[in-house]
């Protein structure tokens, strides 16, 4: 048994502890420790990526995961019900592995991006490292309880990172963020309680053991006469309890994703958050919502996923179109990118709802690619903001002549985001659209028009990105304030260091998508197949 995943989770916590002991005036040392810790995490996750066996063809959820570690954590007597078992159970499959790699990379870039921070450095990096440990923990947890703990544990560091180091309206934004996500996670809590009381097995002593193991839940090991088993006849207001559970989970994760109409916390949080935190928020935290949909909502309730594919796809479609249209109306560059995130995460939802292998792999690909692209875009906004402390699009123009390197990166990532072939955004979106349009003929979960209308999303994103390029970067050089003129230097080495890896990855993934699609192929196929077969089986019960 290798302890690779545990190292990935607990290394940052240890680093946070070390920083906690240090006196707060050693700012350089603190920053270095944070950098070293996140770099170690990155190295470990690269080892994970390389050693990940993509050729493995799983037969059931039990052997779908690699690098698994299982240690019993809490065993409780549960009255008449028997035993309650909570494990420290971690492992990765093709869906979570890319997300772990993505988060560790962005975490390193986040530290570099916060390098110039001078205010309350100690507190900042402690919270940052706690956040980074919980993020990885969330992606690798295979025990629902463990997942939930990490999921909740992310909220507090995030709340303070936005609330203390954020912009002028930081307290409003951080509280809004906290309340929205907490509301969502409480919906998840209710379903979690219902699920573990319904899932389990009878052990060799004839005692019923209720478990939080996601593997058991995905395999559908329901106990007899439990509320959430597919045979249960319980219904509230004529809707079966399983549907309610699915809807609750969907709500919880859609708030995190975020999808329209639960997205309103996102622009506020992004605008007020410091650059590094925006980067993590868009790059990694939103993916936790997407990942939760994959791992929990869809895998455990495949029957309802098939039944409700149409409404979910429509929510995805509305997010794509509405997010794009609202982005077009923004005057603040950071808000524009925040809304474009809403639009692009809509593709993730749409691809998942299609339940075809193209759609699902496109959805995973889109999560990774959006992580890189949106991370880079927020860094690019940070570049302008650092120099002028202003983000209004109309306040500058003609930057191309003054800052050519900066303009190059902006153009690259704008085009990647709008889906130019050859860059990573294209692959994800096209796969999702193929999946969505093909869904009607493959499994018939929803009609073709949804996919066709979603294509409009790409056109809308082209419109707002190109329009922004034209307004800010082309034409005559001009700035609103005279004093900004001297500060408009091209990107520094530090900024260069952050942007180049992302740019390289965006190009490589665009040209050779098989680097990512190869290792995850078997997992995605298994995910889709087991979802469809199990879903049909549950429905027939």
């Amino acid at each position, binding site marked *: 048994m290798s302890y690779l995943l545990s190292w990935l989770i607990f290394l940052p916590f240890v680093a946070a502890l070390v920083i906690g002991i240090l006196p707060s005036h050693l700012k350089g040392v603190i920053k270095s420790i944070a950098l070293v810790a996140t770099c170690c995490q990155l190295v470990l996750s690269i080892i994970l990526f390389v050693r990940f066996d993509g050729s493995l063809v799983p037969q059931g959820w039990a052997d779908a995961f690699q690098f698994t570690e299982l240690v019993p954590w809490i065993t409780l*007597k549960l009255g*008449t*019900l028997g035993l309650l078992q909570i494990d420290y159970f971690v492992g990765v499959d093709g869906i979570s592995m890319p997300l772990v790699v993505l988060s560790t990379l962005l975490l390193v870039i986040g530290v570099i991006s916060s390098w110039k921070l001078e205010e309350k450095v100690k*507190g900042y990096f402690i919270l940052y490292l706690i956040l980074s440990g919980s993020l990885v923990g969330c992606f690798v947890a295979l025990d629902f309880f463990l997942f939930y703990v990490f999921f909740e544990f992310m909220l507090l560091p995030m709340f303070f990172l936005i609330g203390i180091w954020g912009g002028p309206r930081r*307290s409003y934004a951080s*509280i809004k963020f906290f309340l929205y996500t*907490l509301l969502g996670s409480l919906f998840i809590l209710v379903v979690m*309680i219902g699920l573990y*009381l319904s899932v389990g097995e009878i052990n060799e002593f004839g005692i019923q053991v209720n478990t939080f193991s996601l593997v058991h839940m995905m395999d559908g090991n329901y106990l007899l006469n439990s*509320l959430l088993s597919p045979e249960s006849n319980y219904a509230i207001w004529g809707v079966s309890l399983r549907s309610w559970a699915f809807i609750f989970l969907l709500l919880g994760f859609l708030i995190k994703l975020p999808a329209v109409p639960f997205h309103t916390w996102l622009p506020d949080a992004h605008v007020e958050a410091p650059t590094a935190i925006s980067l993590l928020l868009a790059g990694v935290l939103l993916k936790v919502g997407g990942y939760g949909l994959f791992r929990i909502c869809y895998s455990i309730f495949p029957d309802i996923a098939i039944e409700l594919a149409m409404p979910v796809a429509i929510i995805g479609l509305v997010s794509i179109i509405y997010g794009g249209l609202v982005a077009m109306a923004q005057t603040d560059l950071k808000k524009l990118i925040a809304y474009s995130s809403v639009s692009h995460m809509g593709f993730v939802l749409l691809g998942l709802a299609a339940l075809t292998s193209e759609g699902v792999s496109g959805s995973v690909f889109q999560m990774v690619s959006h992580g890189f692209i949106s991370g880079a875009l927020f860094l690019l906004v940070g570049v302008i903001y650092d120099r002028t402390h202003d983000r209004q699009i109309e306040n500058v123009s003609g930057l191309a002549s003054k800052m050519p390197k900066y303009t190059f990166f902006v153009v690259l990532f704008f085009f990647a985001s709008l889906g130019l072939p050859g860059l990573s955004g294209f692959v994800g979106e096209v796969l999702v659209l193929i999946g969505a349009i093909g869904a009607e003929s493959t499994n018939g979960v929803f009609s073709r028009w949804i996919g066709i209308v979603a294509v409009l999303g790409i056109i809308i994103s082209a419109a707002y990105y190109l329009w922004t390029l034209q307004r800010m970067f082309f034409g005559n050089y001009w700035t609103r304030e005279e004093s900004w003129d001297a500060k408009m230097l091209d990107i520094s080495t530090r900024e260069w260091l952050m942007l180049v890896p992302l740019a390289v990855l965006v190009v490589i993934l665009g040209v050779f998508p098989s680097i990512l699609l190869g290792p995850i192929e078997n997992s995605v196929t298994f995910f889709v197949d087991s979802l469809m077969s199990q879903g049909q089986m549950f429905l027939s019960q």
Partner: protein
Amino acid sequence: MLTDQLHQILGDLGWLSFELVIAGGAMLLLIAGLVIKRIAIIQALFALILLAAMMVTPTNTESIAIFTGSLVIDSIGNILKLLFGFSAIWIVFFPTASRHKSEFYFLILSIVLGSCLMLSANNLLVIYMVIELTSFSSYIITNFDFEKKSFEAGMKYLIFGGVSSALALYGASIIYGYTSTLTISAMDFSLVSEPLLLNVALVLFIGALLFKVSVIPFHIWVPTTYQAAPTDAVAVLTVLPKIGAFVLLHRLLFAVDIFEQYWLYSFLSITGIATIVLGTFGALGQSNVKRMIAYGAIAHSGFLLAAILIPYETGSTAFVWYAVVYALMNVTVFYLISLFEEQGKTEISDFSGLARTESYIGGLVLLIMIALVGLPPTAGFTIKFYLFTAMWEYYQSVNDSFILTYLLVGVLSVVVSLFFYLKIPFQIFLKESQLPNNSRSSVSQRIIATIFTIIVLWLFFSPDLLNNIANNIKFIDW
């Protein structure tokens, strides 16, 4: 015949070792207070009495009826006695402790005594007596700062308490008239053919208990009293009489067989739901720290009430867990509040910008507030989680819509409670202070606060202790 009874009564005295030590100790402390003027010695004596009482707590696992059924000594009572002693002992560490007179500790001991007897009382008159014992000590202790405001709070408390115990006594007389017994466990309500008047009497009597546990609509005294009473007394008042009265309520409800009396069950469920809703929303508007925590404590009563309404072992376990962690959280939070009170900070807005000098204590405040909200990684999450589990299990077996509503209201109240509990850490960390702040807490205060916070965290990561407590209790007897 008479000698037999006397012998039996004398023999039963041994089961009351905890209460006897407390009662004797309280007398001793009162007399010692006349002679000894050094308050530190009185404090040491107070702690010794509680420790001695905890040492001699009976350890029987079967429940035993003593004094011809007036009192019942059972395992849950024994464990909660230890909890009461443990919670009460810590008040000597409060920064205000050295300013009190010896009578203060006498009154605390009599609250402990009354609350412990609540755990055993099985006779309507004994119940009345122990409620009055705790109430009178509480009325006086509320007024122990000798200020106009606390006098007002004490009067308010006294009037509400007086009315509710008068009604309870009236109710008890009607119950006695119908059942011709004062012993709760011997009552049989099913023999009464037209129970309307009996039901009214039952509500009147339960009202006195609901008053003690501060459930809506008997909560009106709580915020004022908590705000005005000395903070160390509040730490005891929020925990001991409340948990004691809950155990008593549980005993009464199961004696009248609440599941045969669906009206009573629905009445209590609705009260509980209303308690959670009004407690959480009431806290939102508060600007004084102690008042806010008081409303939060009202909401916690709603959760405890849910636990005693579930007739399964999980429900009882959930109650004991909740009681233990609730006690720990409350003692800690009032300890932290009293640290700030020493620096003259009683309003929430006074906490602004404290992170510059008090970031360590601020961090502890944050953790305790998170525990009070009920989020991981604190034991506050474990207890709420276990309680929700018990409620779900009950719902699964009886399919009763009250308990489902109760569950959903409980879960959703967590969001609202986050909003107000987080106000304090929000002020400490996120606001800039208007006033210069030079005061700092001492190292010993930090250590005590840390110990408590660590317990609350540790019980999350390793709930074995809680589990052992639950395993040691014979719930069938309870």
